[in-house]
């Protein structure tokens, strides 16, 4: 069982998965863009500016989910010291940072036509900026500290502290008076978004997930080769 998850076996599977994602990605992206930009209806209140939602919301979801994943894996790695987890954490962090930044920038652009300003230090936006800072600190620690064990320990502690920010982001719109609207899509409870907008949103989210998987697999593959190169040098 554990042999199946060895770097050699994982490497073979990664190649197959990368090829599979490449084969379906562009068709799905084209479909998602057609729905997001042409086929989905404008909002009765926000008009066509609502289309920004199709990149803003999936990017924010991925930013949050990546950090939750990263923090939980970091805590596990801190306790059990599993080498593969270090590789996964290193591969997830840049993806999370990119999507958090995309969410902040597209949210800011969306803010101008809806709120009349590009920026406001409201609770949701500020907590998202803090999330981006946590990602940045973790990546910097991994890059600057050459001792791997030490880097893992420090970044695990930072990630565990950063995990506190996740529920703050989620509930910021309920706990404080914010410009940002409350969530329209709820896992538990009734969503307030119409199906004609929900479907393109979920399709775009799926395309973003495929993109993340592609980047993650390429980064993971790079990390495996880096390790193998180290062991080759020891020969």
């Amino acid at each position, binding site marked *: 069982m554990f042999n199946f998850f060895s770097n050699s076996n994982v490497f073979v599977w990664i190649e197959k998965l990368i090829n599979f994602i490449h084969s379906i990605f562009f068709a799905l992206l084209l479909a998602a863009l057609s729905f997001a930009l042409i086929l989905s209806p404008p909002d009765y209140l926000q*008009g066509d500016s609502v289309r920004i939602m199709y990149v803003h919301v999936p990017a924010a979801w991925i930013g949050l989910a990546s950090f939750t994943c990263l923090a939980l894996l970091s805590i596990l790695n801190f306790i059990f010291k599993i080498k593969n987890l270090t590789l996964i954490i290193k591969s997830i962090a840049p993806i999370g940072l*990119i999507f958090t930044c995309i969410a902040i920038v597209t949210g800011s652009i969306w803010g101008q036509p809806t709120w009349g300003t590009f920026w406001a230090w409201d609770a949701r936006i500020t907590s998202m900026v803090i999330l981006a800072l946590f990602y940045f600190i973790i990546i910097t620690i991994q890059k600057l500290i050459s001792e791997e064990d030490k880097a893992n320990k420090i970044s695990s502690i930072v990630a565990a502290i950063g995990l506190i920010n996740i529920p703050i982001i989620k509930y910021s719109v309920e706990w404080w008076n914010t410009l940002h609207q409350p969530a329209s899509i709820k896992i538990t409870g009734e969503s307030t978004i119409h199906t004609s907008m929900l479907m393109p949103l979920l399709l775009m989210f799926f395309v973003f997930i495929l993109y993340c998987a592609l980047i993650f697999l390429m980064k993971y593959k*790079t990390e495996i*080769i880096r390790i193998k190169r180290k062991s080759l040098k020891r020969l």
Partner: protein
Amino acid sequence: MISNLISMNGYGIFVWSSFAITFIVCAAFYFKTRKTLKKYEKEFAKEIEELSIKQKKIVLEKSKVASKVFSSYNKTL
């Protein structure tokens, strides 16, 4: 119809810039990641090639990763 799609009732600048930023950043990140991967693969394959025949044989037999990277590198040559 096309001018409607571009202007989006006055919101075009916001919508198109959001999509453009997202896809330019994603494309740049994809190509950077791919370039780094290719660089590592190339350097690893070269390091294997520089080994003695005996060492090379041991490495390629023992490591699936090494043999995969080495064979795909030779294919591209």
